């Protein structure tokens, strides 16, 4: 951790670094507030474009820190969309939108 000055890096780089090392105060399954905020700020606008009724609830990460889970809610129905963390960091906004849209379509929550 000590080798990186996390405060000075770009959000995407920050997240990339968090994959391996975690941010200060992270437990294996918990993301720090900054990482959560970076992810949320990327995902929430995309979801709003796809369906304004989707409410962003929480971000999960597995103990191996490979997979992200976006917990959403539409009306009273919870939805958890998943994505490999590395892919999340690497893909562009249109690709992210396409990925999330496909997952919502498979649940019948979004018309193709």
């Amino acid at each position, binding site marked *: 951790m000590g080798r990186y000055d996390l405060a000075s890096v770009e959000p995407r780089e920050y997240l990339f670094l968090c994959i391996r090392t975690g941010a200060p105060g992270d437990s294996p399954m918990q993301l720090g507030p900054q990482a959560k905020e970076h992810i949320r700020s990327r995902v929430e606008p995309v979801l709003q474009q796809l369906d304004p009724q989707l409410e962003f609830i929480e971000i999960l990460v*597995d103990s191996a820190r490979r997979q992200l889970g976006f917990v959403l809610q539409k009306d009273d129905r919870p939805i958890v969309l998943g994505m490999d963390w590395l892919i999340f960091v690497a893909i562009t906004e249109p690709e992210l939108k396409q990925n999330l849209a496909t997952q919502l379509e498979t649940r019948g929550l979004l018309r193709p």
Partner: protein
Amino acid sequence: MWRWLKQLLIGRPLETAVLHEQRLSKKAGLVVFSSDNLSSVAYATEEILLALMIAGTAALTLSLPTAIIITVLLVILVFSYSQTLYAYPSGGGAYTVAKENLGVTAGLVAGAALLIDYVLTVSVSVAAGIAAITSAVPALYPYSVQLCVAAIVFVMLANLRGVRESATIFAVPVFLFIGSGLLLVFVGIGKSLSGGHPEPVSSAWTAGTAYLIVRAFASGCAALTGVEAVANGVQAFKPPVSRNASITLYTMAAILGALFLGVTLLSRWYQVVPREGETVLSQIARNVFGSGFMYFVMQIATMAILVLAANTSFAGFPRLSSVLAGDRFLPRQLANRGDRLVFSNGILFLGVVASLLVIAFQGKVHRLIPLYAIGVFLSFTLSQAGMVAHWWRHREAGWRRHMVLNAVGATATSVAVLDIAFVKFLHGAWVVVIAIPLFVYAFRRVRLHYFLLGTQLSLGDYEKPKPRRNTVVVPVADINKVVLAAIEYAHSISADVIALRVNLDHADRREFERRWQEWAGDTPLVVLNSPYRSILRPVLQFVEEISRLRPEDVITVVLPEFVPARWWHELMHNQTGLLLRSALLFKPRVVVTSVRHHLAR
């Protein structure tokens, strides 16, 4: 409390080692297996007379020839079944004999017919017995259904205590009926021979005579129901089982034949005619004994034997269902022996179904009587036909003689089954004709289920277990000792733990998150909103979503629960844990476990 009540009602548990001690002597076997058969004396003659009445009272003279034909059939049946007892000492019920010699479907048809017969026997006989009691004491009439259910429960409990105990409990009424019935016949015949009865009216034989006898025969065959009970329950006898069962069968048939022929003869000699309000047997008893003490003894014994006819079914049904369950045509619980070494589940099932039938028909189950005989005679026919095939295949010493005897039995009973089906079809026999194929279909479905279960659990295509990850979801309602104990447990079995709270009524989410951070900050918390105040639905859907997110993982739901110090404290708490556990039961890859905190007071 429950154990004490159970021991009081059905007695202390018996060791498996004393199973052989539960076997029946010939006398006890007669009590257990004859009550159904002998109880038909109470109504078989009346059924014949009612069938003949359509041609006027003169036709009633045909009752005696009809009774003689039925008695001849009884003799054929008994000789045939006696052979079955020796050929199948391990249990020669119609199901086993038909299955082994005619194929599985024939066996299942026989099994279905017998199971239906056993249930109907309990309902009809108990209702008939209670009807006799309410006739004598009309004040009890409004409570007929309750009395029927109470009688079924009584016989059921006696049987749950063990087959020997039921024989001891019911010996007095059975022998009282046999004694008073034989006394009625002997005294009645004696009085008649000494000229104390009017001459019966004779009738000329006409073209319709044959039809009348066919009709009366179909009705009177009810007298033979229960003959198969000994063969079905041969394993209940002490060794040598075949000999003891055979002697019991002959004794039962001799008593039945004497009583049935005697009562039918007396009905003619005393010119008794079926009438509303008094049974034929009661009229004969009144003629023979007057209205004194012996008349009442006869009536009480008749009521008792009618109720106790159910006892034979309680001996037969559980045994047959255990054999079917052993072959996986019925749920395997029916093959388990209970505390008292009887097939308790079969006894309970029979008691419940028969009670429901009585309740559904409000105790007026006489309409079910036509359903009886067809099923029984179908099983007779299949059993005897199976024995013919048995002798033909095995060709043991004297096989020709045995085969001829069983062939005569099969032919006679098949004629009877066709006759009953023809005469009684519109009176309700059609129900059995529909019910038997449905039962056979159900048996096959049960068997298919067990087969598929076996293939799915088989190790044939099993690969060595791969290491699996476990994602744990802990539903939390609050932050307290129980919840934190559940979180601690969850972390002990997995590194992936998610706490899930369902936020009802827009409760303060931030306050909860702040407290969560304080007490269990290492565990991610998901707070879902529930605008419709449901807890179950969001939790179930969230578990489904996590299961979809991590398709390779086992999903464990850890339920924090507390156990109140007093049972009645449970009434003061909602049973969300119980509901969740039930709802998650059918979700694949989901394990549900509870972390319980036992309250001290």
